[in-house]
Structures are given as structure tokens and as C-alpha cells.
């Protein structure tokens, strides 16, 4: 039998009946057609499915949709606000932090959560923060550059733009 879940995704509220076995990532991709969140490994190794659940980077392949009941979820489709890109999106493009783009949504969301908790990271801290997000194309070099570059922009504009990760109380 289905279960009813109520959750907010990218600021929109949804009430849906879901199978108890339905993964959050399947709910996002197939129920809501938000296909920007990807499935890379099914076993929470690669991080391609990372979204923000109540502000924290979460691998949506290892969370059931019913577990997300009552939460606020942000996916890559919700990063830009009123068609203005989030600094992390601009930085990934500017620094050539993506090639095939498959891991990119997960990496950006991991980075957003990380930068809102650590606004001035060292490169080593950046590398540690993203070690659960695998990328096979870029060798991480430009991803580290992108996250560093976004951190600088986000520090300058603190207060000017609402936080994505911390929009909800923890």
C-alpha cells in the first residue's frame, strides 16, 4: 500500500502517494520529473544523486521517499533563483569544473552545503569535503578551483542572497 508524503522540493510543496520502497532519488526523477539529480552507483559511493535535505547534502539513492516526509529538498533545478545562477553554478562554468556534467549537480550541492558551513576553506578542506562525490572527467583540479572561487564570491555577497542550504532550521 502507498504512503502519503508531504515535502517541499525547490520551494514547491508536493503531496504524493508513494510505495514504501521508493527511493528519494526515484521520487525526484520519476514522480516529479526532476531528472537533474542522477544515479551513478546505487550504493552511495559516487554522490551523483546528492541533494540537500533540510539543508544537508544527502545521497538521495540511500534515502527512501517516505523518510523525506516533512523535509525541504533542494535539487540542482532549485539552485538558481529567478533565473539568476547560484555562485557555485557560475564558478563551475567559469573554472571549467565540469566536462560530461553527470556528477556536477551532486558536486555543486555538496559544495553549497559545505561552503555555507565553512565559508573560507583551504584546498585540503575542499578536497576532503567532496571526497564522497566521484568525478571521472575532471581530475578534480578545476572543481577545487570552482569551489574556492565560489567561496570568495559567496563571502562577498553574504546577506545579499538567501542561503540555499540553511534556508531551513537545523
Amino acid at each position, binding site marked *: 500500500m502507498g504512503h502519503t508524503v508531504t515535502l517541499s522540493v525547490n520551494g514547491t510543496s508536493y503531496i504524493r502517494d508513494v510505495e514504501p*520502497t521508493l527511493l528519494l532519488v526515484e521520487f525526484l*526523477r*520519476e514522480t516529479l*520529473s*526532476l*531528472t*537533474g*539529480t*542522477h*544515479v*551513478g*552507483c*546505487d*550504493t552511495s*559511493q*559516487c554522490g*551523483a544523486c546528492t541533494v540537500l535535505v533540510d539543508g544537508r547534502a544527502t545521497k538521495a539513492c540511500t534515502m527512501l521517499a517516505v523518510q523525506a516526509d516533512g523535509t525541504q529538498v533542494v*535539487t*540542482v*533545478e532549485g*539552485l*538558481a533563483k529567478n533565473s539568476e*545562477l547560484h555562485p557555485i*553554478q557560475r564558478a*563551475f*562554468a*567559469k573554472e*571549467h569544473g*565540469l*566536462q*560530461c*556534467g*553527470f*556528477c*556536477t*549537480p551532486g558536486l*555543486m550541492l555538496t559544495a553549497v552545503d559545505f561552503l555555507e558551513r565553512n565559508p573560507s576553506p583551504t*584546498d585540503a578542506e*575542499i*578536497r*576532503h569535503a*567532496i*571526497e*564522497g*562525490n*566521484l*568525478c*571521472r*572527467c*575532471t*581530475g*578534480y*583540479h*578545476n*572543481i*577545487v578551483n570552482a569551489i574556492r572561487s565560489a567561496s570568495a564570491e559567496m563571502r562577498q555577497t553574504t546577506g545579499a542572497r538567501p542561503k540555499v542550504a540553511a534556508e531551513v532550521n537545523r
Partner: protein
Amino acid sequence: MTGTATPTYIGSRVARKEDPRLITGEGTFTDDVMLQGMAYLTLVRSPHAHARIRRIDTAAAKKEPGVVAVLTGKDLEVTGMLPVFITVPSMNGSKHMPIATDKARYAGDAVAAVVADTRDAAKRAADLIAVDYEPLPVVVDASKALEAGAPILHEELGSNLVFTYPVKGGDIDKAFKDAEIKINQRIVNQRLIPNAMEPRAVTAKFEAGELTLWTTTQIPHFVQLIVALNLGLGQNKVRVIAPEVGGGFGSKLQVYAEELLVGHLAKTLGRPVKWTEERREGYLATIHGRDHVSDVELAAKRDGTILGLRVRTVANVGAYLQAFAPGIPTILHVFIVPGPYRIPAFDYEMRGAYTNTTPVDAYRGAGRPEAALLIERIMDRLADEIGMDPAEVRRKNFIPSDAFPFNTISGITYDSGDYAPALDRALAMADYKGFEKRRAEAKTRGNYRGIGISSYVEICGLAPSKANAALGVGWGGYESARIRVHATGAVQVFTGTSPHGQGHETSWAQIAADALGVSPNDIEVRHGDTFESPGMGVGTFGSRSLAVGGIAVHKAAEKVREKVVQIGAHLLEASPADIVVEGGKVFVKGVPDKAKNFGDISMAAYLANNLPDGMEPGLEATVYYDPPNFTFPFGTHIAEVEVDGETGAVQIVKYSACDDCGRQINPMIVEGQLHGGITQGIGQALYEGAVYDNDGQLLSGSMMEYHVPSAEDVPAFDLDSTVTLTNTNPLGVKGIGEAGTIGSTPAAVNAVIDALSPLGIKHIDMPLTSEKIWRAIRAAGEGRR
């Protein structure tokens, strides 16, 4: 560059046109294609590495709610065999059906198929299929597979020998007779699992007699061709779309069983069908890479001069020959083994063997990383043996810059090269001179520090169709491009290449922009749709896209430009020789204020009422470009590592590389290709390795056991480049997609061995995991304090 005076966009760090959709989640990957009424395919795969299929009972599965169809190999023989595009001499090809009919030959070989309304229903039904297997003896090791009495995978072939591929040059016996130094070394190039981040997927629909098939591929036109031929459809009725493709690295350079099956099922079931690979399934069912064991003998003089090289290698091809598999250990490996060195005598014998393992085919570098590791390990062994600096041993044997074009002892012709400057720059970047001080300092902390050099040359840009044919490649090596300028001046480039991260939309726009005198922003590059592109595209692999496909774009743009000039001259009443095309304007030299807009010219081409006499209306051009030779990029990579004396863990503390890929179209993209390639090569050197047990079970069966490098496993990279143009093509471009992978593995391995050399350690096979190194240190008598 013909026709293009000073390039404006070629050579610039133009921002990628691909990025806006990929950073917003708007890109569509194959698994994102959701169709009304779609059914899901799941495959039942053999748990045995070698087993006769006695009987398959599908009755229970057929009764499962939601099941649409349950099919076995016999039902699906109509989809025909999987193709092999390369035939080398003496090759014993295997019969390879999408679903095994007689026996399973590796753990993961598909034996049955289920289609259901939902993925879960398909999986539930798959679990209910009872296969009665008769397990057979298994052989995993390629050398053992060639021994008398080994279990035979394909009985009709009589043995597991796929081919024997000898390449010889010079007098090898004399070389070894004259040798003052002889080095013998067995080198294992372990099996790798490609791990493109996007798992494979296929989605298809059949409507009004036309099959549309979305697939994760590097070669959509080959998929179209084989699907059409095998399923009995006109090629004009098969539209293959490679939408966003999430990395390939050779693993999507196939026509896979699932592409034929999904196409066939969509056609016969009357509803769309999707198959999406799970990662653990992919570890079994998507091709692997490498897997060579080489016995290498080097003959040299005491002053470091190489006299000869003899190699005997067995390559493990897995259970079946895949699309390009026969060419990887042969054409793309043996010929390039001499690397950047003058080697007077060469004797290589490569043998391929079938084993009860996942098939092996191209993985980034494909044959050339195996070559580079082999020769670069042997160069370091030689340096060690004669007590010479590894940099100087290399320099001493480099092909001199005035010797190009250079005919190698293996029988190919290097187009251009200047190897010493790249070595010198890399040495300077690495502060090679100051290294011994750093080694000594590390020792005070109980650690072993080492530095490793790798000078490589690689063969890429596959390539002249006639040369391909002579080598046994069953298809031409050209590439196609079509440029269409619409009446409004909007420009579309259709390319036969099929990028999956390489940024062709940007680089091709830069190339076309310079020829057409417009901005890359005004040019749209479209790819990966066989109904849009020219009749045939060869695809993206082997670092060929720019040197072949990019040149096709350049030539098509030059043709369009020529027509723009003719129309401009006509409208401006001037000589074509005086017409300038730049900045979106067409004008007479020296009279820019009386310019026509680019769009005025294109509009005139379609209005067609005021064109030069005899000129056809319209403004588009199609080019199939077949290059005269391969291209041969080169460079030197230097890794500096520190090995933890207690744990054996390796950290790369500095990485420097100087690469030469000829003219660079977009240096930002070139660097990105290098970063990713270097990381994959480091992955092989230090972390990655597929492991089978003796029963043919893949022990490294998921990302838990197989370590894809993370951001913490690799350093930042210090890159530089030299530019040595090639005469092979008008832009002087080579290729860069695989160079990083080719250069980095030997650099990292040589660095670790150099670190451990004070312990008397001469060689350790990859991956150089902390455990392996810890054991080696202890075996050497250290670390037992």
C-alpha cells in the same frame, strides 16, 4: 591555416557552450528520457563464469504481475551477433550473441531477459527464472588459457588463442649479442574497470515504422548501422540519439547487446522500452580495459644507448571479442612501444587469449598506456642498472628533432616531434635538481620520497582509411561535418563526432567562427543524432575528434566562407581577392564602412535573385575528411611522491607535466582533458585493479572494492605545454584526450619505485597500494623495528 588570417577564437579560452544546461539540470541523459507507456528491461546474468545452459524455466516469471515478456537466448537470436570492427591476421573470432544460447562464458553473461511494466516487477520476475546450469572448468589467467588442457571457451575455435601478432624490425639477435647490459623485466598491466560516472542506458520507441533509440554511446552511427542491419530495418528508419553522455573512456565505444535488445523489444512489443544498468551490473557487463602480462628484454650499451627491445605479451581479451578489441593490444599498442626513442632492433610478439572474464576492449589510452608503462619502466630499470640519471637516459635515446618525419623500427611514421624541450620544461617545473635534498628531508621523517619521469609519444587521430584497412580496421577513419547557414545568418554545425564531456560544441564553434568571421556565440554545434548529422559519423574515441572531426568542420567552414566571399564580391562589386570576412561583416579590404552584414550575404544566398551567374542558391557545405596520417602528440610527466615508512601509503606531493598536442583550439579544455587523464592514470598506478578469483568471480565487484580516485587521492596539477605543429592537417592539431592517462601512470609508478630504490626494490606491479608497498618494504628488511 588556409583562408583564416589571424585566428580570433582558435587558441582562446572560450567559455563552454555546453555548461548552461549542465549546471542547471536541464541536460537530458539517456535515463532521463521518460516515455508514455514505457516498459523496463532487466537481464538475468549468469552467476557462473563458465557453465552450460541445460534448461531455462520461465513459467513462474511469466505469471508475475506486470510482466510483459520473458525471453531466452533462443527467442532473441533474431537480433543477430554483436559486431567486431577489426580483424587482425590469424584472428579467431568468437560468436557473440546478445543473450547466450548454449553456455555462459563469464559471470555476467546474459542468459535471459524480462520486460515488465515497472523496473521492480521486471526484477522480481527475473528472480523467478530458474536456469539449470552445468558448471564447467574455468580459466581466468590469460597465460593459463593458452596452455594445453585449458578449458576452451569457444569449442569451435579449438583453442583460446585469439591471435598471434608479431612485429619485427632490425637485427634483434645482433642487438642482444652486442649488448653490454641486458635487462629482463616482467610487467603486469592490470585489468581496469572504466567507471564512466553515467551507467549505460538505452531507451527506444517504435512509431510509424521508425525506431528511435537513445543510448549512452560514443559511436551513434555505428549503433544505427548495426541496429538497422541486425533488426532488418532501413538505416533511414533507425534514428540513434546519443544525448548527453556521462563519460565514456572507451566503455561506450561498442554496439552492446542491450542496444540490439531494446531496439528489438520496442519494435516487437509495440511500446517504448528502457534498460538502465546498475553499477554492480556494469562492473560485469560493461567492457573492462588493459590486462597485459609482458616479458620485456632490453639490450643496451653501458653508456645508456638502447640496442634492442624484445617483448612477449599475452593480452586477456575476456570471454568474447568486442567491437574494437582486436585492435587495442595490436595496432594501438605494439607499434607505439618504442615511444620517443630510437630503437635499432625490435621484436614483439603479442598473443591474445580468451578467458572466462568480462570482455576487454578500449579504455582511455587503449594500448598506448600499456606501451608507455612498458618502455618507461624499462628505461628506469636501465638507468638504475648503469647508474645514470633517468632524465639523461631518456635524452640520450630521444629521436632528435631534425629526424622528423621519423620512420620507427615498428613501421609507422611519426609526423612531428621535439621531445627534449618538453622534458626540460617538466624537469624545471618539478625542480628536479633540488630533489635529492627533499628525499633526504623526507628520510628524517621516516618516509621515502621518490621522483618519476615518463616521456611518452602516442598515436592518435584514427585515421587514414586506407591505412586502417591495411591494418585490419573494418571501417574508414574519416569524419564528417556539415555547416548550414540559415537565411538569417544563424549557423549550425553538424558533426559526426559524438562528444561526452570533451566540449566539441565549444571547440568546433571556435573553429567555424574563425573561418566564417562570426562569434562562436552565433554558432550552434549539434551532434549525436543520426537523423541530423551527415550520412555517417565515425565518432569520438582514440583522441581523434579534433584531428579528424575538427578538421572536417574547418574544411566545411572554409567551403562556406568561399561562397560568402563570392557572394560578397558580387554584391559589393569587387574582386573576391579583396573581400574580408570578419566581425560578422563582409567588406572590401580597406572599406569596412561599406560592409554587408554576414546575414545580408546569407539572405542573398537564399533569396537567390542576385547571385553570381551560375551559383547555386543556399549556403551550406558537407565535408568528409580523411586524414593522410595519424598524429603523434608527446610530452613528459613527472610525479614526486612520498611513501609513508610505517604504512606504505603513497602521496603524490607534486605533479608536473609538459605536453605537446600541436595547436590548441581551447587551452582551457586541453588542460581539463589532461587533468582528468592524469587522474585516471594515477588511478591505475596507485588504486585501481579488477580482481577475479579462480572461479571467475569478480571480487572487485562494486565501487566499494574498486577504488575510483577521489579528490583526496590526487594533487593539483602543474601543467605547461610546447607547441609543435603537425603537417598532417591544416590546423596543425594533434589530440589530447588520452595523453594524460598515457603519461601519468609510468610517472607515478617510477616515482614510487624510485622512492623505494634505496631498499633495493626494482619493480612492483600496479596498483601500488599501501598494503603492497608495506609488504615490499618489510620484505626488503626495513620497517621491522
